[in-house]
C-alpha cells in the first residue's frame, strides 16, 4: 500500500512538472493567457494569436508597401488579442476578481505599470516588461462597461529607441519615462 502511494506521488510529480513548465510562456514578454483565464474563450468576440513565423511573413510581405509597419512586425515575436463583449453597465462585475488577479499577476512578475486609468467605470492598464535592459513585452488591459473588455499582449524585443519613437508618436509621456536606462538593468 505504502509503495503504491509513493509510486503515485512520483508519477504525479513527473506528470505535473512538465505540464506546469509547458504552460509557462517561453518569452519574458508573453502573458500566460491560459493561466490568467481572464475571459471565457468560447464567449470572445475577437481572438487573435499571431506568433513569430507568421509575423515574419507579414513583415516580408509588407516591406514594399509599408516599410514602417514591416519593420515593426519584424521585431515582434507575438501578438495576442482577446476581446470580450460586456452586456450592460454591470457586465464587467463578474470579471472584477479576475481583472484584479491579472493586474496582481503582472506586478508580481516584473511588469511595470505605465498607465493606470480608472474613470467613470472604465479602466485601462498598460504594462511594460523589460529583460536585459530591453523592452520585451507590452500588455494592455481595457475594460469599458457596457461595451467590451480586452487584453492585448505584444511580445518582442523593442529597443529603447524604438519604444521612444513609438512612445513619442503615441504621445504618452509615461511610456517615454519607462525607457530602460542605457547599458544595464533598471
Amino acid at each position, binding site marked *: 500500500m505504502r509503495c503504491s502511494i509513493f*509510486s503515485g506521488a512520483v*508519477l504525479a510529480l*513527473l*506528470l505535473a512538472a*512538465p505540464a506546469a*513548465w*509547458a504552460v509557462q510562456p*517561453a518569452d519574458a514578454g508573453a502573458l500566460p493567457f491560459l493561466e490568467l483565464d481572464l475571459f471565457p*474563450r*468560447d464567449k*470572445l*468576440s*475577437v*481572438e*487573435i494569436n*499571431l506568433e*513569430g*513565423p*507568421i*509575423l*515574419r*511573413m*507579414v513583415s516580408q*510581405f*509588407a516591406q514594399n508597401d*509599408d516599410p*514602417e*509597419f514591416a519593420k*515593426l*512586425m519584424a521585431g515582434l*515575436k507575438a*501578438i495576442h*488579442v*482577446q*476581446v470580450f463583449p460586456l452586456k450592460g453597465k454591470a457586465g464587467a462585475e463578474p470579471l472584477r476578481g479576475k481583472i484584479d488577479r491579472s493586474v496582481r499577476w503582472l506586478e508580481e512578475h516584473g511588469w511595470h505599470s505605465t*498607465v493606470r*486609468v480608472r*474613470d467613470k467605470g*472604465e479602466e*485601462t492598464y498598460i504594462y511594460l516588461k523589460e529583460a536585459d535592459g530591453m523592452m520585451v513585452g507590452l500588455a*494592455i488591459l*481595457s475594460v*469599458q462597461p457596457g*461595451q467590451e473588455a*480586452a487584453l*492585448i499582449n*505584444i511580445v518582442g524585443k523593442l529597443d529603447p529607441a524604438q519604444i521612444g519613437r*513609438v512612445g513619442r*508618436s*503615441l*504621445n*504618452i509621456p509615461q511610456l517615454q519615462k519607462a525607457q530602460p536606462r542605457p547599458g544595464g538593468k533598471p
Partner: protein
Amino acid sequence: MNETLLCDAILDLIEPSLDGELAADEESRLRIHLAGCRSCAAEMALAVRIQRELRSLAPARQGVVVPFVRPARPESAFLIAAMLALTVGGTIFLAQIRARPAGTAQVTAEPQDVARATAEARYALAYIAKVSRHTSLDLRDGILRRRIPLTRTD
C-alpha cells in the same frame, strides 16, 4: 473658454459621438465646433477611419475550446509505463520546440493566411489606438495613421 481647452473638451466628445452616446445638445455642440475647427475635424475624420477599419478588420473569430478529457485511472503497470513514456517524450518534444531559434522555423503559409495575419496585426494596433483614444490618453500612433489605408472622401 480658452480655445485649447475648448478643443480638449470637444475631443472628449468624439468617441462617445461615434458610439452614439451623446445627448442631442452635446452632439449639436460637437458638430458646430467641428464645422469651424479644422484640427478637431481632422481628429473626427481619423476617429471615423479607425472605427471603420476596426469594423472591417474585426475577425470575430471565436476561440476553439478543447474539451478536457479526464484520463482513465491506470489499471496496470503497462498504463503507468505508457503515461511515463508519453510524459518524458512530451517533455523532450517541448524542450526541442522551446530551444529552437526563432529564425529557423520553417513555415509555409498561403497568401490569404498572410493577408489575414496582416489584417489581424493591424487590428491589434488599431485597437490599442482605440483604447487609448477612448480613455482620452491621446494614444495616436503615427505609424498607425500611415498603416491604415486612407479613405478618400472627395
